[in-house]
């Protein structure tokens, strides 16, 4: 009996462990699927296998302005709440891409749901030793403190504390290089504006549980503020159960049948579209706006159910890389006042054409910023780069600028 048990478990174990190797996908094997992915992009509206499900991967980047092999080999850790959805994988791929290009070694780790996990996992990764830089989604002082302890330079991306107490304690940490974030408040606001313009007056919010991901909390906040600041807008209900988006929608639709005419999702996913179809409220009176793009988004932008979306956050992570690398290369601290994050625009998508452009450039095998474009933000490669350049790009970042860069 013991033998049998041991056998079963050993099987399971090896299985799992084998997976560890399996998932750090080596480019060569994936390029195939990537090309398919690209070819799919050409016609996203055939709602089948598209960006949503294909491997996220960027073709290996070439650093033309310098010889990568000459560059020192830094070990850069990147942490995100989970690399198990499309967005997470985009982030992972982008960082991987840059690290390859800049001859750096990338290591990825997830921070679990609780802040305690964030601290614990960070401790573990940094304790393992010789990590040269850390790019972390969000900037919780307790996590920064860990980086300080191991004195690893820390750059926060896509998430910055909103509470005074936390912000104030950040400058105290030598290792904290500042933050490059997306303007989530703006995103939430835009989304609501779009709904408003589309005639929605009675809206619902479906958001992630507070405290899991900073950016979602900001978007939800923007929603609440917008409602508060518009007397003719009315929030029917707010739900913060991310796991149950489908459930939320059907409940909204049922309990406010005929009243509800708009829903804002802090995180877009195909679940939304499917459920709306199931509920039979697509293309009709209920408009939706959601951050993040998923495989079906195109279809529903086309038929006017979705009035607004935005994406391209991983570009921000690339900028974060630039900030970190600048420091690693020659100790330049680009951000003087670390309590003031560089706040970047999202790529706003208000209609189907925008979406096509987005797929063409952002979800292609070239990332939002190529290795060279990033080099342009690193003083080590480009003299005279200041934070001002970041600020400029932050507001300039848009589909137009992106397409002009790609011409």
């Amino acid at each position: 009996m013991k033998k049998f048990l041991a056998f079963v478990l050993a099987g399971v174990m090896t299985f799992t462990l084998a997976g560890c190797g399996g998932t750090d996908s080596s480019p060569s094997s994936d390029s195939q699927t990537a090309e398919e992915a690209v070819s799919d992009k050409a016609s996203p509206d055939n709602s089948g296998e598209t960006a949503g499900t294909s491997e996220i991967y960027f073709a290996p980047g070439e650093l033309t302005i310098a010889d990568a092999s000459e560059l020192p080999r830094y070990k850069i850790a990147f942490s995100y709440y989970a690399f198990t959805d499309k967005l997470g994988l985009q982030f992972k791929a982008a960082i991987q891409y840059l690290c390859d290009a800049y001859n750096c070694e990338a290591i990825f780790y997830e921070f679990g749901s609780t802040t305690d996990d964030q601290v614990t996992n960070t401790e573990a990764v940094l304790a393992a030793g010789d990590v040269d830089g850390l790019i972390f989604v969000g900037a919780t002082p307790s996590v920064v403190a860990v980086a300080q302890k191991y004195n690893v330079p820390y750059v926060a991306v896509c998430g910055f504390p909103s509470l005074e107490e936390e912000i104030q304690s950040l400058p105290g940490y030598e290792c904290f290089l500042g933050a490059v974030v997306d303007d989530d408040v703006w995103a939430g606001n835009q989304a609501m504006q779009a709904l408003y313009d589309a005639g929605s007056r009675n809206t619902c919010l479906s958001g992630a549980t507070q405290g899991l991901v900073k950016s979602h909390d900001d978007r939800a906040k923007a929603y609440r503020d917008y409602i508060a600041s518009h007397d003719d807008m009315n929030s029917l209900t707010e739900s913060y159960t991310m796991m149950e988006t489908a459930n939320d929608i059907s409940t909204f639709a049922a309990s406010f049948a005929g009243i509800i005419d708009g829903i804002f999702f802090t995180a877009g996913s195909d679940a939304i579209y499917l459920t709306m179809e199931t509920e039979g409220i697509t293309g009709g009176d209920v408009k939706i706006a959601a951050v993040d793009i998923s495989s079906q988004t195109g279809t529903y932008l086309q038929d006017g159910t979705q009035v607004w979306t935005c994406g391209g956050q991983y570009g921000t992570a690339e900028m974060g890389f630039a900030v970190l690398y600048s420091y690693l290369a020659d100790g330049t601290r680009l951000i003087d006042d670390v309590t003031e994050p560089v706040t970047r625009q999202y790529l706003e998508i208000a209609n189907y054409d925008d979406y096509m452009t987005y797929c063409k450039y952002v979800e292609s095998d070239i990332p939002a910023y190529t290795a060279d474009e990033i080099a342009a933000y690193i003083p080590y490669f480009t003299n005279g780069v200041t934070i001002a350049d970041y600020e400029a790009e932050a507001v300039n970042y848009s589909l137009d600028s992106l397409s002009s860069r790609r011409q």
Partner: protein
Amino acid sequence: MKKQSRALRFLKNLIYALIIPVGMWAVFAIASGGRTASAIMLITTLRQCVMPSIICYGLMLNMSVGMMNFAAGGMMLCACIVGGNLAKAAGMGIPGLVFFCVLICLIEGVIVGALYRVMHVPSIVLTIGMMLLWEALPKVFYTEGLNLTADYTYLTRSPYCFFVLAVCLIAFYVIYNKTAFGHNLRAIGNNQAIANSVGLDSDKIKFLSYVLGAAFLGIGAVLYASSNGEIRNVSSLGSMSIMFDGFMGMFIAMFIAQFCDMSFAVVFGVFTMKMLSNGFVALGMSSTVRDIVQGGILLVLMIISANAGIFEKIKANKAFRQECNDLYLKSK
């Protein structure tokens, strides 16, 4: 005459059984100014009951032998993601989805059951460990989770979903009442020591209860997959929330089961839970408030069922005391 009284008793029990769910519904109907009373609301709520009910059937098979299955959520998640992707790869559509989900869940059930049988550690301990395992397994193969297209979602739409529920209900009813297995379950649940000594192989039956339970969970997984369409992998313990409605519904069901057959009690119980959460949404309250009340209401029900018949007892004692005292005084 006898027949009639039987009918009457049946009616009485039916009413008792319906008090909780219907009462819950009525309360919110009034509170929300009739909004939750609408037909569409009712249908939606019922539709949302389908998946949790089926999960509840799965869990109930374990519960009848006094075992818990915390891994249920993880098993379903794993079955969804792996099964769904296999079905897509094979391009077999809904039948494929059903086939693979149930198949994988069965395999999982066999593994959990076998482990239990070999290890003889408390089911809570074992299943918590297995939950972590099942949550992690799909990440190995499908890091991105599962994305289904609209043509996979018919099973969750009414009326199809109600057919599914009906099938499961009948299946559970038959297993629970009409098979030796169902009765052995209850025998062991009531007194395992004796059940063993009269020759019931409790190991085998517990093993079966995991496997059959897994079959129900498999169906649940199909519905979960097709209602969400996009399933993401979760990190540690995240899968609990999938089974939570079914899990809590189970306790209410066990309470209602004293009035009607378990197979219906489960649906009533789950409906109560769903009505509770939807009611709060309809009242425009945030979903978090519901948790507080949910716990409270469940607690009240449990207290009632735990102290069933206490008032009769007190009354009887009172009468008896009276009687005794009278006798005593007389004797003096």
